[in-house]
């Protein structure tokens, strides 16, 4: 990879963002790197590292408050940092393509896929319509869209996120750009889809000789796809080099710190935490027995009967006191709905949920309020889970409102003590949510949930929106609180790495059904169901190897043969839960 002229070379680029007081803050500080033809270079860093700004600066798409202060962006002999809008427009789309993070909003919903794909071809290459159409169709085929000519006439809303991202990729690559900028292209997608899209992107750009500037925070993904890595921190380049060298044999302290923060499998399990081994099945806090939850779709006309959609379909789970049960699955698998049913935000239409032996279905009024003190929830989005009009002390104190024996002063005192407990001491109590970072907000959310010392905590993707270093702190907080107060956690996540670190037991869900459930080691080390295997294989992880090095772990292997007369349950009919080992069940179906 030593071509005489690189595709893109960025030299001492600085970008400033205007602050409220009119001073400029440098978010990109003298960053320089080159991308060779056909190379995939990844810009890696936490939020605020300036990685997205660099990608946008190349295309001249910086937000209005940001400005290039110094440096050059040389692309095909031209300096894009000083190019006119007219020149930039000619380069965009034709020579440099961009794929954005949110596939749901990056295609125009009012135009057909075909129209959007041909638009650029006809604009930049002045191709006749028929030829543009042929090229677009050919491209859709290459991104593995099943019915290209049908897709050509369809509108974006008819496709899922992963399909849209492939369509987006097709409409960008149909121009055969010299450079593709992909800004967190798969962050919004599920693990299996993520792998599909990345595989297609890598294969196509390799075939076309397109250079790729990949902006990402996902170290595992970067290590498995990128050729080279530029590690950024607060706008400065920390380290640069071949991805294996940077990510598997890190030299710089910051890179080491990031890798240290990646979730790892520690000594977990109920026994490890409490020092006393307990028999499986003893002292169940929650028993979920063949529970189904339905959502009604709004009928088109009011005289029609509402159609029901089963988000959870006959799922059974048991939570033992003091353990962490993780529910993993892609979006739409019903994992969140199970959690919501436990805190009574959703109601089951069949089956039963028992809490300490009491059936929840019949709980109303006072009994329901009493139950709610026993279960609390930590939400996913730290930005919308706190009322922006309340101080932190008031937010946390509200968790005690339903305890009548406490005075206002008592509540305030306990709220402050709890904020202290989660690492927000002193005058944090008087602040408002908008003054906090994402990680701090999630701490408030946790404090609010545990201030009335519930028995069960449902955590719905509590660390998904956070950087790895912050994620590590929050996971540690969860573990510390569990040790101290003996909480039982239902931990809902799509991130297998996080689950591996925190869970005692793991349940894998798919389309409302539980496909496999067992202890963490059983599910990760000897998975049975093919879906579990696919999930594990789609998630490359960087794991510690020896004293200083790391290695890229990708689960490979085949499922064990199912018992005689059965096959693995794949979606139709009703599954039979079969116990393959003590406490390890898998969904089967009579063959």
């Amino acid at each position, binding site marked *: 990879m030593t071509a005489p002229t690189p595709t893109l070379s960025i030299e001492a680029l600085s970008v400033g963002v205007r602050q409220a007081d009119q001073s400029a803050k440098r978010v990109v500080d003298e960053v320089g790197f080159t991308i060779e033809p056909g190379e995939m270079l990844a810009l890696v860093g936490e939020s605020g590292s300036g990685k997205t700004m660099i990608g946008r600066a190349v295309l001249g798409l910086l937000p209005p408050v940001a400005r290039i202060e110094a440096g050059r962006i040389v692309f095909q002999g031209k300096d894009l940092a000083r190019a006119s809008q007219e020149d930039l427009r000619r380069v965009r789309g034709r020579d440099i393509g961009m794929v954005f993070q949110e596939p749901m909003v990056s295609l125009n919903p009012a135009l057909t896929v075909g129209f959007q794909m041909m638009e650029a071809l006809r604009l930049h290459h002045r191709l006749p319509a028929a030829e543009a159409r042929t090229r677009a169709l050919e491209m859709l085929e290459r991104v593995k869209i099943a019915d290209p000519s049908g897709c050509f006439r369809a509108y974006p809303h008819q496709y899922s996120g992963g399909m849209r991202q492939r369509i987006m990729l097709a409409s960008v690559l149909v121009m055969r750009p010299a450079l593709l900028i992909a800004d967190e292209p798969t962050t919004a997608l599920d693990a299996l889809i993520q792998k599909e899209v990345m595989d297609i992107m890598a294969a196509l750009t390799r075939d076309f000789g397109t250079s790729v500037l990949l902006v990402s925070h996902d170290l595992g993904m970067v290590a498995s796809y990128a050729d080279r890595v530029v590690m950024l921190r607060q706008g400065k380049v920390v380290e640069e080099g071949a991805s294996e060298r940077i990510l598997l044999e890190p030299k710089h302290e910051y890179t080491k710190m990031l890798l240290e923060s990646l979730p790892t499998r520690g000594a977990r399990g109920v026994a490890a935490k409490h020092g006393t081994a307990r028999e499986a099945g003893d002292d169940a806090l929650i028993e979920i027995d063949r529970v189904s939850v339905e959502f009604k779709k709004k009928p088109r006309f009011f005289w029609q009967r509402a159609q029901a959609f089963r988000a959870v379909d006959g799922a059974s789970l048991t939570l033992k006191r003091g353990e962490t049960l993780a529910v993993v699955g892609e979006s739409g698998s019903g994992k969140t709905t199970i959690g919501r049913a436990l*805190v*009574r*935000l959703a109601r089951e239409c069949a089956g039963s949920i028992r809490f300490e032996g009491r059936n929840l279905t019949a709980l109303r009024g006072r009994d*329901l309020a009493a139950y709610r003190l026993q279960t609390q*929830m930590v939400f996913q*989005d730290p930005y919308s*889970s706190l009322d922006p009009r309340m101080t932190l002390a008031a937010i946390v104190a509200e968790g005690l*409102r339903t305890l009548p024996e406490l005075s206002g002063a008592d509540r305030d005192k306990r709220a402050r003590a709890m904020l202290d407990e989660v690492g927000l001491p002193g005058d944090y109590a008087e602040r408002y949510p908008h003054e906090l970072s994402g990680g701090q907000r999630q701490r408030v959310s946790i404090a609010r949930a545990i201030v009335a010392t519930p028995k069960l905590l449902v955590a719905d993707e509590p660390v998904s929106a956070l950087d790895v270093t912050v994620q590590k702190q929050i996971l540690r907080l969860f573990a510390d609180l569990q040790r101290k107060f003996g909480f039982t956690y239902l931990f809902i996540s799509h991130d297998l790495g996080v689950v591996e670190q925190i869970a005692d037991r793991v349940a894998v869900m798919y389309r409302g059904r539980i496909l496999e459930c067992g202890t963490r080691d059983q599910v990760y080390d000897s998975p049975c169901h093919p879906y579990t295997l696919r999930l594990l294989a789609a998630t490359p992880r960087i794991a510690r190897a020896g004293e200083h090095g790391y290695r890229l772990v990708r689960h490979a292997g085949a499922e064990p043969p199912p018992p005689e007369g059965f096959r693995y349950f794949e979606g139709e009919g009703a599954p039979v839960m079969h116990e393959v080992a003590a406490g390890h069940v898998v969904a089967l179906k009579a063959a």
Partner: protein
Amino acid sequence: MRFRALLRRPNAIAGGVLLAVMLVAAIAGHVYTPYDPVANDLLARLKAPSMAHWLGTDEWGRDVLSRLLFGAGVSVSISFFTVAAAVTIGALVGVATGYFGGWFERVAMAILDALLAFPSLIMALGMMTVFGPSRVGVIAALSLAYMPSVARVVRGTVLSVREKEYVEASRVMGNSELFTMFRHVLPNCVAPIIVLATALFGWALLAESALSFLGLGVPPPASSWGGMLSDSRNYVGQAPWLALVPGISISVTLLGINLFGDALRDQFDPRMKNL
């Protein structure tokens, strides 16, 4: 504490001063006026402003300053109570329909949409024929006419706020639906309500003048700003002060309300606290 902080905003001070002047004039006009606001003096018709009549006289020789001061109380109280009633009822209806949804929402919104379908002035006219020209009649008619648009705006905001996770968090904590609605949903809809309320205040001032013009507002000879403005129409060429005096008063009051409303909106939003 909040209100002392409010006084640090230049908008709040300017708006507050204008509103204070207005209020003083409105109260003063009912206690003392230089002349009797309804006494005719046909020898002093359409006199330009002078030392005797600071703001001149109208076509019946009545003192414009006295009528302006007296009218201030009438106009401002009508607008104030109209806005207060429309916003209170509209916000409650809007929050309830947006938050609870279901059949209640469908029925309530159907009624509101039917009300919205009438031009508000026509509806007020209809109401006035029932109530007859009086202050209370004007207030009832205008607030009923404006209530549906407030409800619509509030409902729209509620629909987005109720999806926030802090609303769900409140339910999980065992708070009742009503508590959640008043503690978490309504306060987060305040910004559009205040903006709408300031706009409504201006509309109400003008609508009152339109009703007075049609003979359905405040019954003559009592004065109101709207009435003065519409009476001045025939004499704009000869006596421009007749139109200018109530016109400027209305504009300045609106300016005060808008400035104060903006400051209030920012003050109620903790995210804007330090701006």
